[in-house]
């Protein structure tokens, strides 16, 4: 449609003079603000505050459709399952023997980040589309305390019942293992790239050696990083006071301020360490051992101050519809032969009794590897992080967040 220029001018003049009434600026603004107010009402309801997000078995009931649907969605961390090319041998074996088809996602890179992604749904008793999620102890404890996960039926998991290692059977946050089953345990220590630096044996060195300035990364996991700061402070990470916490926080603040620390990272420290942008860092044991296959210069050491010991736990979130299928998978991975196959690939501490013997068949060189099958001496110097209630946890998270972003 074309308009002759003369006519257009005429129309514009007429419109300006008010001859043709379209949508005027003034009346539009008036209408818009009234309707904005009308739609804004639900938004303004937020003005009354937000209720507690705690759920209970009564307030949030889940339905199990496992009998009808032989399916399962499993969310895990990257590089945390055995692989052969594109295949995942143990997972495929599970699918063949059980007839349950598994959708395996590696969408967990950081506990806090994942929590941020699902907290609104779980807090409101909505499904998150996953039947198993894998969370580190402290986050698993938080989710159990919030009532966001389903109770498991130990009777359906005879292998877990029989083979779960005794030291993992009753964590304080889930004394009967009614809500969680460990996937793997692991250690946090120091890794360095021998191509660019000599050995780094302690956190003291990592944080103060001048040749490492600006080439060190720490983990953005509060529990891991603060555990070492507390150790440097001379405190017991499993039982520390408010004062010691402040001291440890101030210590970290000093290291950040001195420019020693280049980045705080999630699982992605691997890239920087490989490229030599970071020459030494706080690192997870299994990751580093897996890296060594590709890059022998990468070394992992037990810091003089001690180690951080943690477990990652499988949980079934509320509203997940395949709890029985999830239990079948958990049980499957507690067969010693399967557990040994998994451990041989991921190189983390195996939570399954009998797997060490089964490892003889899988890879005899790993039977005595203390990072997969640690003995008591090795773990004498390993610490967990003190259990915190929700509001303290939130306060500490906030303190930590403030310090790592100068």
């Amino acid at each position, binding site marked *: *449609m*074309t*308009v*002759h220029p003369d*006519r257009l001018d005429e*129309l514009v003049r007429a419109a300006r003079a008010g001859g*043709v*009434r*379209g*949508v005027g600026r003034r*009346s*539009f603004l008036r*209408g*818009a603000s009234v*309707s*904005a107010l009308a*739609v*804004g009402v639900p*938004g*303004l309801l*937020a*003005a*009354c*505050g*937000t*209720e*507690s*997000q*705690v759920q209970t078995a009564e307030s949030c009931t889940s339905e199990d459709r496992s009998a009808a649907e032989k399916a399962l969605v499993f969310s895990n961390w990257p590089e945390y399952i055995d692989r052969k090319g594109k295949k995942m041998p143990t997972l495929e074996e599970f699918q063949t023997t059980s007839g349950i088809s598994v959708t395996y996602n590696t969408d967990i890179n950081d506990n*806090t980040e994942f*929590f*941020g992604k699902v*907290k609104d749904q779980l807090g409101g008793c909505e499904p998150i589309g996953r039947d198993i999620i894998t969370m580190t102890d402290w986050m698993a404890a938080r989710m159990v*305390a*919030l009532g966001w996960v389903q109770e498991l039926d130990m009777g359906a998991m005879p292998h877990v019942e029989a083979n779960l290692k005794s030291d993992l059977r009753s964590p304080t946050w889930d004394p009967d293992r009614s809500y969680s089953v460990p996937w793997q345990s692991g250690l946090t220590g120091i890794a360095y790239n021998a191509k*660019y630096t000599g050995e780094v044996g302690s956190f003291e060195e990592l944080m103060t050696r001048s040749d490492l300035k*600006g*080439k060190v990364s720490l983990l953005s996991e509060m529990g891991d990083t603060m555990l070492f700061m507390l150790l440097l402070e001379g405190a017991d990470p499993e039982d520390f006071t408010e004062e010691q916490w402040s001291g440890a926080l101030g210590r970290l603040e000093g290291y*950040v301020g001195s*420019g020693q*620390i*280049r*980045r*705080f990272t999630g699982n992605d420290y691997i*890239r*920087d360490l490989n*490229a*030599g*942008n970071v020459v030494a860092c706080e690192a997870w044991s299994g990751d580093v051992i897996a890296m060594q296959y590709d890059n022998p210069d990468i070394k992992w050491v037990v810091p003089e101050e001690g180690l951080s010991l943690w477990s990652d736990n499988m949980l079934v979130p509320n509203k997940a519809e395949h709890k029985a299928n999830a239990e079948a998978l958990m049980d499957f991975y507690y067969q010693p032969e399967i557990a040994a196959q998994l451990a041989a690939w991921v190189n983390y501490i195996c939570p399954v009794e009998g797997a060490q013997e089964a490892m003889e068949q899988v890879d005899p060189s790993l039977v005595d590897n203390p990072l997969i099958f640690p003995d008591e001496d090795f773990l004498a110097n390993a610490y967990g992080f003190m259990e915190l209630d*929700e*509001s303290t946890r*939130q306060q500490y*998270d*906030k303190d*930590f*967040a*403030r310090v*790592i*972003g*100068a």
Partner: protein
Amino acid sequence: MAGPLRTAEPSAPPPAPGGRRGGLSGYLLLLPGGVWLALFFVVPTATLVATSLYDPSGSLQLGYRMTGHVQNYADSLQDYAPQLVRSFVYAGTATLACVVLGFPLAYAIAFKAGRWKNLMLVAVIAPFFTSFLVRTLSWQYILGDNEALVSFLRAVRVLGEDGHLLATPFAVVTGLTYNFLPFMVLPLYASLEKIDHRFLEAAADLYSSPFTAFRTVTLPLAMPGLVAGTLLTFIPSAGDYINSELLGNPQTRMVGNEIQDLFAAGDYPTASALSVTLMAAIVLLVFVYVRRSGTEELV
């Protein structure tokens, strides 16, 4: 075909009483956009403002009580003013760099590219075929401590023995500039391309030097594009957190990083207060800028 503008088209449904004069159809046409804006802008903004006034001692377990705690704004500014200022400094520097790089490029495409014009435009947009994250990650490689660029700069003594580019403010601003450059080039090109060459010829006929012609003809006519380009570059860079996350260090964190971390840590009130402050600061800056550049009608 001028008819339909004055009277309703014969095939159209019978006009409502008052017809065009009531202006009802105008409002109906605005309806989809209005609903969109209400649902995805007005409601979230109202919620955000409300959340910023919650009691800061709330938690997921206890819930968050509305206490009209205005103090949240003062507290968040006290803790995070450096990051807020830094965001505007980085965004401003990146915008300036985009103008310096983008103007000659847009000018060349509009006036000098000849038959290469379309190809060059495609080249400007081509990076968008890969994801924002991948493009930013590739800068980690380009600026890496042991890669060619840094080795070269060390060899020619621009960088010290131990100097690096990655994890510095330079890397963050470079990332921002690179990622938002097309948003500067495209509006500039659109403005420049419309300029009638005869104006420049007329200027030359009237004895203006090429520089004077540029200053008094080309530049004023390119202003709408320049203003649009700076806004499209400055506003998203000020709120960006990916570049600082991937290319920066703890001393280069921007306000977006802090907001993201605070939300994850469950401190909704502080995170919301900081978001509202950022939004208000941007609106204020843009308002002053648009007023001063005298282009309200053009943007």
